[in-house]
């Protein structure tokens, strides 16, 4: 990533995401939206998949968006963005575009990315449209009331993975969406967290600039107050612990090179990571976990880190 912003003082001051929207108090995605809109600047078109952000920001006749914005459906934001990008290209060629270098940015949740939107995402990446696709990951279908998605972590409680006597929470592991995106050989993909804003905005800007070459992807970790069952003032703390415990490593895939970013660049050595438990214990969705289950999660996390470490060496 390029360092567009070195300190907090360099960050863009102008707010391009209006307050008065209906996102939850303490919403992690709201923090992300604020910084996405500020960082991409006004010359961008936002394509939003159905989801929490979409329904809470566009209650007719009001909109929180100050950008040109379109929402079409749940599964197709990458396809819609492909069309927007192609339109700008042709209209420019024909001298019919008056807005200059307009960027195209998708904002979609984990349901709209990992699950129902995966096909159109793959198509867009394969066709190499110059679109920045931003996934805000709150690890379940929060808009419909906390149902499990392909992004929900193992053992997590959701309304469709209840903690029962026979089955306790989600049975399966979280899907490796970054791996899927990287397999498309995109110019740039990165993870980011709302707890690490400076890292996040530099990645947003880097990814945005790389759209001149092709599609870029950002996976932003956005804790969810009601879905993860933690107090609403703890959003940033939860997000920070996710990174510090190694649960959500910060890294980027820049033209085939995997680079771990601070503080995750220190975390290949397990002893440098905080115990996973510190992250889990803040959240009601993991409240039922036994020591054995936590050990299993830690084992899987270690394996994931070994995989990342190998990728980082390539």
């Amino acid at each position, binding site marked *: 990533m390029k360092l567009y912003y070195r300190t907090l003082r360099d960050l863009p001051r102008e707010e391009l995401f209006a307050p008065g929207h209906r996102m939850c108090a303490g919403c992690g995605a709201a923090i992300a939206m604020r910084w996405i809109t500020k960082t991409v600047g006004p010359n961008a078109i936002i394509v939003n998949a159905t989801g929490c952000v979409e329904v809470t920001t566009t209650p*007719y006749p009001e*909109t929180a968006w100050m950008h040109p914005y*379109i*929402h079409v459906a749940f599964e197709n934001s990458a396809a819609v963005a492909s*069309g927007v990008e192609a339109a700008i290209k042709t209209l420019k060629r024909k001298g019919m575009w008056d*807005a200059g270098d307009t960027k195209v940015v998708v904002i979609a949740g984990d349901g709209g990315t990992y699950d129902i939107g995966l096909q159109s995402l793959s198509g867009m990446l394969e066709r190499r449209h110059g679109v920045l696709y931003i996934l805000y990951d709150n690890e379940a279908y929060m808009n419909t009331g906390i149902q499990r998605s392909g992004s929900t972590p193992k053992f997590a409680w959701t309304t469709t993975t209840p903690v029962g006597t026979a089955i306790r929470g989600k049975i399966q592991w979280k899907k490796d969406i970054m791996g899927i995106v990287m397999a498309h050989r995109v110019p740039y993909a990165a993870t980011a967290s709302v707890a690490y804003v400076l890292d996040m905005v530099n990645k947003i800007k880097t990814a945005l600039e790389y759209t001149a070459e092709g599609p870029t992807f950002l996976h932003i970790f956005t804790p969810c107050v009601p879905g993860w069952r933690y107090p609403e003032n703890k959003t940033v703390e939860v997000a920070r612990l996710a990174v510090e415990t190694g649960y959500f490593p910060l890294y980027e895939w820049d033209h085939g090179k995997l680079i771990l970013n601070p503080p995750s660049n220190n975390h290949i050595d397990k002893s440098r990571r905080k115990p996973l438990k510190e992250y889990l214990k803040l959240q009601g969705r993991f409240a039922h976990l036994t020591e054995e289950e936590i050990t299993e999660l830690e084992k899987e996390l270690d394996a994931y880190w070994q995989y990342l470490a190998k990728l980082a060496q390539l």
Partner: protein
Amino acid sequence: MMQIQEVKHKEALTSNYAVAYAVKAADVDVIAVYPITPQTTIVEKLAEFVANGELNAELIHVESEHSALSAVVGASATGARVFTATSSQGLEYAHEILHIASALRLPIVMAVPARALSAPISIHGDYSDVMNARDTGWVIYIVASAQEAYDTIIQAYRLAESVYLPVMVAYDGFLMSHTVEPVELNDESEVRKFLPRQIRPYTLNPKRPVTMGPLASPDWYYEFKYQQVLALREAYKVAKEVDVAYGSKFGRSYGVVETYKIEDADYALVTYGGAAYGNARIAADRAREKGIAAGVIRVRLYRPFPTLEILKALEGVKAFAVVDRAIMFGSPAEGPLYKDIATAMYMNGIDKPAINIIHGIGQRTIYVEDLYKVYTMLKDRPGKEVVFMGVRI
């Protein structure tokens, strides 16, 4: 005085190719398509035009029909002139976006060589796909020749961009999509004059940011649906005006309903599409040879429904039959056009013998002889019934 008749140059084209030529003439900006039989040759031809630099457009090779329509929704919202095409399962797959495209009021034009639906899988023609899309708020034309397909695509852009509604141009899968016929092509610069670039009230542009596709509560939603009702009513008027304007410029027009020997007919067939209409004309001629005053009515503009024109055309007949090429399972009468006409008549206090013929399903051949028999049925035992014709019962 001797008249020198100009022999107009005609190309030998399938309806699919005719559509591609019309799209090129319309100077379309963005095309998104996914292959499906019998639509595919439209895309192949367009890809050739783009590859040869004859059409300055972005061709998006999407990974599904759902994405094809989604991509043209995005492109149209951005202000581009767009085109897509599909058939059968593809139209079903994109169905969700049909509703959204019309509700967002985007002037998208889509060609649909009509094809049967699975299961069992059939690549052959009928109108099950188009009829499933009839209530989605799109303007729907069903055309009957390659020439009309060409002309109607051009008319469709003018109409779509006047009333801000998407327009579907449907025709018989295979029986037209793959049939070579003579087509007179217009001078492309004249087509572009007929389709001037309009400034739309709202597009996605950072200079004039708007939000499209918001959430509407019960206090707001219904008003936008009612707007669509009004827009389709407006489209009914504008479609006729566009057809007249096109006729005066290019010498060909069709009306919203086409009739054949209806003026003095006692018995009429009402239908849509190339095969059913073409063969009905021959059947009417045959019936007239046998002393039956037979006529044919073809619905060209299917949505919005041309109630007035159809009622007027049926005014003098003693009995009529509606030949449908789709089945609405479990309906009081299984033919979709029949249902429309029955509703139109009932609402206008008209009661006449009317038979619903279901035929041509999965491209079961509609023989002229079959349609001739329908005329004799109308004469000998006029009533109200649904007849599944051409099927082994």
